[in-house]
Structures are given as structure tokens and as C-alpha cells.
């Protein structure tokens, strides 16, 4: 059985000002955490999984020492069968990379890098609380290329405080000049509990206007597609055949297992996730070798809803045939009315095979998705 694996490394040198991901600055916990994580990984042994994508995310996975990463991957190879053409991605913060580390990553079988640049302006990086500069990013990017990484993603963000439309446009131009295979453009969302949120509450976060924020997005779509990138998911762009296999698993409603603190899984129509706090995760693994904090069986109505709202994130759309295959029902039987209404609102369109968001639908995707909720 073929699945996707996500491995979470919940540590950062310093948390960014917008970040509400599960990550901590408590680096002293790394050794104990890795012990537990390795135990969780080795428990996959004998289950007969074939892994077609691995994604090591964070936090900052590249905060780990070379030998720590090596032993982690060793355990992984010992525990599951990773196919020869598997996509193995690691998220890397340019501030934590060296030539040596990039070399190690390459030799341990990692074939895809995801680098967080976010913005081409050092003043914006500073506001965000990033630990690197544009120059550091560029140096590491060039090194990675020289070493032979031929599948690199770069993360960008827009809608940042003090970001002008022009800033973002420059970022896009700069990045396209480097020819990465994959670009993610994420809109900033100000999440509860982050330093940005506290500033925002005080009215001290100078966000661009909604109009400007949308213009940034629309420009990115226009510019990147013009440069040969395929806009294949709401926030993602890739050159031909370099779409992220791992993320496609999420959108196409296939099974995946998440390992590590707070990691999410979807398996056999169940969603579950591990304890998010590192000590709780470690303790639970030590005691019972499982760290699942929450498990939910997804009933058929919810499966249908999830199938639709995840599939619709893809620009090619949601395959009506795939829906039918999975649920033994025509999609119109379940969502005929909803689809009709959304088409009338100009948010959805369809052809023989696919149902997809319109250009306007991309801006109001949640308004579409919500209609599919049971």
C-alpha cells in the first residue's frame, strides 16, 4: 500500500512573528524528541507500507545536526520501503544552511528542497522576524544548485506589513530569474497568538489594503504563468512535472501519515493527530508507542465534503469521475443544487470531466467550500 509520510521537526532558532505552527525554541529538547520520533518511525516496521513521498517539515528541520538527520533517515529507510522515484522533501531555512549541510542532505537521499525566502526585501524579512537575509538565501540557493539539487521550491509571502505591490513584484521577478522548479505564494494570515496578532489588535500592524493584497496575488498568477509556471493549486506554481507530489496527496484525498509532535494523519477515512506539545508527545511515545491525541472517523457526508473542498483547490479542478469512483454516486446527486447555485454566482464552472473554481472563485474559495459542508 502506497502512502505519503510527513515528519515534523518542531524546533526553530527563533519563531517568526507571523508563525502559529507547532514549533518551539526549546532546542535542548531535540535529543529526547528525536529518540521518540525514531521510535514512532520504527514502529512502522513490518506494516508493509510503500512510501512514495516523504516531507520533512517544521519548524526548521535543518536546525538538526547532520548526524541527527542522517540517523533519522536511516531509521526511516529501515522501517518503510521508499520507492526509488519517491519525492523526498525537506524544508530549509536559508539561515541554517551551509555547503556542508546541503551536501549531507543530498547524500542522504533528499531530492527536493523547500527554501523559505518569503520576500526579496531585507526590511520586510526583518519585520517578519526571519533569521536570514536575501543574500544568505541567494548564496545557499546557488550552492544547492551547484551540488545538484534539481527540484527546489521557494516559499514567498504576500500581504505583509509594509509590503508594497511593487515590492512583491520585484520579489517575483528576482525569483523567476533564479529559475526554481516550484514556487509557493502564501497570503499572510494574521493568526491568534502571534506577535503580529498582538500588533494588529493594537492597530499597529500596517498591512496593505485588501485591494493591494489581491493585486499582489493576481499579479503573481499573471506573471508566473507568463513565465511558464503552471498555476496548479491556489497558492502553488510549478514548472512542468515538478508539482509537489506530497501536496498533491493532500488535495487528491489520498492517505498520509504524519509523524512527530502535532503531526496530522489521514488514513482509512480517519483523521488523527499527535500531541502537539513536545514533552507530551515524548511521554506518550515512551509509554504507549503511540502519540495520538485526537482521532475522528470521517463519516461519508464529511468525506464527500472534504473530497470536494480539497479537490477544488487544484486549478484543474475536481474530477467528477474520481468522486463517482470513490463514493459510488454522481457528484450531482449530492451537490447538484450547490453546484448550480455556485455556477450562477460565477464562482464555479465545469466541463465534461472537472468542476473548478473560476478566477473569482479563487478569491472566494472559502465561500465555495462552505457550501459543500454537511
Amino acid at each position, binding site marked *: 500500500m502506497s502512502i505519503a509520510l510527513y515528519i*515534523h521537526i518542531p524546533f526553530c532558532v527563533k519563531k517568526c512573528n507571523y508563525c502559529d*505552527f507547532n514549533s518551539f525554541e526549546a532546542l535542548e529538547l531535540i535529543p529526547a524528541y528525536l529518540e521518540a520520533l525514531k521510535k514512532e518511525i520504527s514502529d512502522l516496521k513490518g506494516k508493509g507500507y510503500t512510501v512514495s513521498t516523504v516531507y520533512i517539515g517544521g519548524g526548521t528541520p535543518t536546525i538538526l545536526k547532520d548526524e541527527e538527520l542522517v540517523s533519522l533517515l536511516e531509521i526511516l529507510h529501515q522501517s518503510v520501503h521508499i520507492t526509488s522515484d519517491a519525492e523526498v522533501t525537506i524544508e530549509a531555512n536559508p539561515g541554517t544552511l551551509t555547503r556542508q549541510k546541503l551536501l549531507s542532505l543530498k547524500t542522504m537521499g533528499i531530492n527536493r528542497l523547500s527554501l523559505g525566502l518569503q520576500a526579496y526585501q531585507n526590511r520586510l524579512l526583518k519585520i517578519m522576524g526571519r533569521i536570514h537575509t536575501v543574500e544568505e538565501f541567494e548564496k545557499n540557493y546557488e550552492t544547492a544548485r551547484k551540488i545538484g539539487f534539481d527540484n527546489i521550491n521557494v516559499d514567498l509571502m504576500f500581504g505583509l506589513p509594509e509590503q508594497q505591490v511593487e515590492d512583491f513584484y520585484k520579489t517575483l521577478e528576482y525569483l523567476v530569474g533564479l529559475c526554481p522548479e516550484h514556487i509557493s505564494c502564501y497570503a499572510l494570515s494574521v493568526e491568534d497568538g502571534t506577535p503580529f496578532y498582538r500588533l494588529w489588535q493594537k492597530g499597529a500592524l500596517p498591512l496593505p489594503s485588501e485591494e493591494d493584497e*489581491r493585486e499582489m496575488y493576481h499579479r503573481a498568477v499573471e506573471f508566473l504563468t507568463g513565465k511558464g509556471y503552471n498555476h496548479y493549486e491556489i497558492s502553488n506554481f510549478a514548472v512542468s512535472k515538478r508539482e509537489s507530489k506530497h501536496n498533491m496527496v*493532500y488535495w487528491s484525498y489520498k492517505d498520509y501519515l504524519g509523524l512527530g509532535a502535532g503531526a*496530522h494523519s489521514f488514513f482509512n477515512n480517519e483523521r488523527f493527530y499527535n500531541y502537539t506539545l513536545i514533552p507530551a508527545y515524548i511521554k506518550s511515545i515512551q509509554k504507549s508507542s503511540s502519540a495520538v491525541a485526537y482521532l475522528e472517523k470521517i463519516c461519508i457526508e464529511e468525506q464527500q465534503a472534504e473530497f470536494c473542498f480539497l479537490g477544488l483547490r487544484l486549478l484543474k479542478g475536481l474530477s467528477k469521475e474520481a468522486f463517482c469512483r470513490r463514493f459510488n454516486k454522481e457528484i450531482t446527486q449530492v451537490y447538484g443544487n450547490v453546484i448550480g447555485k455556485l455556477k450562477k454566482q460565477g464562482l464555479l464552472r465545469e466541463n465534461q470531466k472537472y468542476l473548478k473554481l473560476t478566477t473569482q472563485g479563487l*478569491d472566494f474559495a472559502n*465561500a465555495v467550500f462552505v457550501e459543500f459542508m454537511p
Partner: protein
Amino acid sequence: MSIPRERIRNFCIIAHIDHGKSTLADRLLEHTNTITERKMENQVLDKMDLEKERGITIKAKAVRMIYKAANGEEYLLNLIDTPGHVDFTYEVSRSLAACEGALLVVDATQGIEAQTLANTYLALEHNLEIIPVINKIDLQSADPDEAKREIEDIIGLGAEDAILTSAKIGKGIQEVLEAIVQRIPPPEGRHESPLRALIFDSLYDSYKGAVAFVRVLDGNIQPKQMIKMMSTGKIFEVTEVGVFNPDMQAVEILGAGEVGYVVASIKNVIDTRVGDTITDADKPAKEPLPGYKKAVPMVFCGMYPAEGEEYENLKEALGKLQLSDASLFFEPETSAALGFGFRCGFLGLLHMDVIQERLEREYNLNLITTAPSVIFKIVKTDGCKIDVDNPTNFPDPAEIEYIEEPYVEASIMLPTEYVGTVMDLCQEKRGTMRDMEYINEKRVILRYDMPLSEIIYDLFDHLKSRTRGYASLDYELTGYKKSDMVKLDILLNGEVVDALSFIVHKDRVYNRGRQITEKLKDVIPRHMFEVPIQAAIGGKIIARETVRALRKNVLAKCYGGDITRKKKLLEKQKEGKKRMRQIGNVELPQEAFMAILKMD
């Protein structure tokens, strides 16, 4: 009943809200051992939770006490509780008609309030013996001499033998009981005359049906007797009579002068109308007791379930409330904006609030109410006369000859320092001053002719806030007067929303139109398109605001396969959507309907 009529005393308590009526009643019950302290919940008389919370009495009730007086004799004391609010003046008058005396309770720290004054005058009209009681004398700010002076100056009652009490600490209770025995006359009435019993209240009991609370004036009433309701001619067989101890306790017979209840398998309280006279079906009295009036609703509004599927539940709940409240009126109504609901009629604004709260609390309903309206009398150009209490039925202005609206005489009692601000307020509310009377150097009564529609709108709130709660208000319907009324429509995205329309005076309409569009702008969520909000009279737009278009509603990232989080967000949006009313392509939150009800 071994106590003869000469030793029966029927009395009530007149007091302003918070002046200590319920506490005094509690002490009387304790002192006469009607209820033991152990069983004593504070304020026995206020049975509904709502009343306890608001500290007001909504429905009149009665309780019987046996008191061994200083002269060694046992007396039967019937305390008939009266509602303390202007909406229920008629019910108060029926309660008073069932008594021979009244305790006039005045807060020693506050003096007389408008409502107290109105009720005292009512009691004097019924020739009741009035015993002034000055309460809360334990408080430091108490000024019993000033309170006495007010009673003498304002009401013209001798207050030299007023009783000083503190119901809270139980002071003066014995004196009150002695005064009741000595100063209130025993009921008159002839046992041998045909039965006449005055209904002063009723309740609905799910086992017994409608229970009439009565004061027997002439004759007797007992089980198996056939009785007739004199206003409707309907005949019932009595199954039980009894007294309040304070819970209902069956007795064999109720005789002239007594107060108690009558059960006669009556299915609906509509047949036990307050003020009606019960007589013997076989030997009927020639004349009913005077003063019966059918309770007429004065204030109307639409009540709609916030969620359409609750319609049947709302209907059932209104039906149940009506069983015990004959003055509640309702009929089905349909609104383009709100779907199926009910047009409901109430005695006044408080009555409306009470019903709404009971529906929400006791029946767990989530309601949307439309702006309250009075009944306008409209004479059309073709000579046709119509009553309109619903803006939907307001005719085309071209067809209107003239409109009349109900007016009241409002009496406002207030400290002199607020006279200026209250006069301004009354002027804003289209009032014309009748007179101003100085009670003493500190307090004044202002009397105004004022449209009822202004009172039900927000006069209370403003009066309270502008006088820091020191003003009190009473009003009485005086009749109809010609008025320049217009219907104000609210348009969303170019469409009239019927449930947001209301009828308002021409001089007010621009102001209100502007206020409402401004307020709606704040409560209507942003849509994918711009939503214009307009206020219009007929086809003429008088105010406009715009809700800016929403630019995006999309989640950029999916956190490492965390679909649960994304789903929660969608579920929340879905929930929010459910609470919205879809009007054309605009989604309207409940708050939008509230915006019409109150303006600051």
C-alpha cells in the same frame, strides 16, 4: 371557614418597583406563620423567574393569612398582589376592586414615584382605605419625614399615622398587621344574594385548566354549582374552589367577602377574563360588577423564528402562553424577508419584552422581532377607514386622506435638576406640555401629551439615562390625534426588506433614516459585491450607505496536512451563514433587525 365576614380583611400593596413590596409581603407571611422560615424562599409572591430577576411583579396573585390580633381574635387577611407596571393598569384596577384597603409603601430614601401615584389615585377611586407605610427606614439616607410630607402634599392623604418599617430587617411588621385589622373595613356583601364574583386574575394549570382568581362579592360559590361568565354567557360546572395558603388549597365553599380560586374545567384563560363577573347559571345576578373591559393590545410587532424550522414550535409556545395570558394576541403573518411568523399584540412594551423573554427562555426559541408599532387609524381618500398596526399594510401615500395616531397623557416625576433635560426629551418626542407641578422644592411632576409610538420607541431608556434613573413614568391613553406619519422603507441592494419598514413621523424620518442606514452598515457583513443600503419614503431615497465589497475569502495554506483546522474554519463560516437571513442575494444578520428596534 370558621372566621366570620367581620373578621376578613382584603387588601393590596401599592408600591413602586424596588420600594420593598415583595419583601414586605414576605414578612407578613412569616409573621402570620403562613409560611415557615424554612420554606421561605425570598419573595414568595413573585413566582416567575423573570419577575425575580427583574424585581418586578408581572402578574397579580393572592395569598391568605390567619392573624391573631392584639385583641385576641383571629383574622383572615387576603393579600392581593398587584402588578407594578404601567402596561397592566387595567389589571391593577381589577385587583384594587377586589380589596377594601391598600398599603401604600413608600421608600423612605426615594419618596413617591409616578406609578405609585397613579395607582394610589386608582385606589382612592375605589374608595379603598389607604395605610401609608414608609419603608427602608433602616437605611442611612432614609428621610421618613420628607416621605410623609410628600404623601400629604402630593396625594393629600394624612400621613401622621404612617407606619415606619424596614421590611428587610423585619421592623414595624406587627404594626402593619394591626393597622390592617383596625383600619381596613371588613368586606360587605350578602350571602343570600345571587352570586357575583369578580375575576381579578387567572392562571393556566395543565391539570386543572384555567383557574380564575376571584373575590366573591355576593352569594357563595362551591363545587357542582353551574356558573356563568357574564361577559360571554358561557356556562361551566365548578369542580373545585379554594384559597391560597399560599399554594392552592381546596375548601368547601367560598362566601361573600372571601378571596380564592375557582376551577371549572375551563380550557382556556380567554374564558376567565380579568374583570369579568362570575354568577350562578340558575340564579343569575341582574347586573355584572362594574368596570369590565376586554384587554386590548396596544403594541404590535412581528415575531419570527430565527430558524425557519422553528415555526411550529413558536406557534405552540405562543398558544401555551396565551392559555395563561388572555391579553396576548397573535395571528400568522408572512414576511418576504423573514418567512413565516406571527403578528403579536401586547398591552405595552414591557408586556412585549416579557413575552419575548419567556419564549426565548422557557421555550428555548431564538426570535427575530420587527419594530413595535401602535395602531394607526387611516382615513383613505375614498372615505374608507382602516386600522394599521403593520407597516406592510400601510397604504400608498396618494390614497391617504389623513392619519391619526394614539396619544397618551404621560406623567413624569423627577428631581427638579433634570427638568430641563427631560423637557428637551419630551419635545424631541413630539410631546406638548400640559402642566408642571412642583411637589416640593426638590421634585416635579411634568405632564405631557405625547404620541404612544414615541413612548414605545425608546422614551423609557432615554428618560432613565438622562436622569440617572431618578425619573418615573406613567401614562394613560387619551385618544387619537391627526398626525403626519409616513412609512420608511429600507432597501438592501435595491430591494425593499419588508421586515425593516416602519411608520414614523414626518419630522423624524430623515434623522431615523440616516441613523438606521449607518447602523446597518456596521452590522451587515461584507459580501462579494457592494451592498447599497438605502432609506426611502415611497420612491424617494432619503439616506444611503454602502457596505464595501469583500475582496477575498480564501485560506492560503494547509498546514502540513492539517485539514481538521481548515474544516473547523469552514464549519464556523457555515454556522455564521445559518444565522443569516437571505434577502435577495444579501445575507442579513439578526442584529440588523435589532438595529431598527433601538437607536442611541
